[in-house]
């Protein structure tokens, strides 16, 4: 898994790529929660995700909940087919804010 962060406008973009499984999801969780704890609005870019398991999904849910408790924005961008399949299995595809591009969050 690759995990990187960059800022675009008011958002901190956390980009996850490759295989987000139980071996790597603690790193994804750490990055997502760190940005929220620094009071950034967070978008997680999943366009390069080839595989994500329930532990990776749990990291996103934890981010979603922390953002809500801190009244910060949290969304998913460019969700890959592999990630969408798992979000749908978890019935979370209607829970998260999901948009194809970062621009659509920024322009909103």
């Amino acid at each position: 898994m690759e995990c990187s962060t960059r800022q675009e406008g008011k958002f901190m973009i956390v980009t996850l790529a490759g295989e987000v499984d139980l071996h790597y999801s603690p790193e994804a969780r750490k990055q997502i929660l760190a940005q929220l704890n620094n009071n950034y609005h967070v978008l997680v870019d999943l366009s390069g995700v080839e595989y994500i398991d329930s532990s990776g999904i749990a990291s996103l849910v934890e981010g979603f909940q922390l953002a809500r408790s801190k009244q910060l924005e949290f969304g998913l961008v460019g969700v890959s087919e592999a990630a969408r399949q798992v979000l749908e299995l978890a019935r979370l595809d209607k829970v998260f804010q999901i948009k194809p591009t970062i621009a659509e969050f920024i322009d909103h």
Partner: protein
Amino acid sequence: MSQTLIKKKFKAHTFQLKQLRDWVRESAGKAGLADDRIEQVVIGVNEACMNIIEHAYHKTSGDIIFEVIQEPGKIIFQLTDFAEAVDSSCIKSRELDDIRPGGLGVHFIHEVMDKVEYLSGKDGKGNTIKMIITLT
């Protein structure tokens, strides 16, 4: 007549999950499953293995055996551990409306597999999960 398509023994550690997923893809392809079905099976077997690492071995060391057995009309994806026997009545998913981290693995397994069976070892040691795909 049954045929074992693959049998592998590996350490119960998260770094093995990628290798396990590759074995699942290889054996499910050999069994003739379609690509989208293979990816569903990969999700189920990966989650079952995560549960063994986290909840059977509690992230301590141990061995897992992965087998894929083709029988007339079905394919069995099977994981066996040698940890303390787990009470299968305690293996439950969370309610999906209860949005919180975790508790999704068992739901994923049951969602992608046609049938799931849990077996315990005779002397209180060991567990086997059989995840069955029915061939139509």
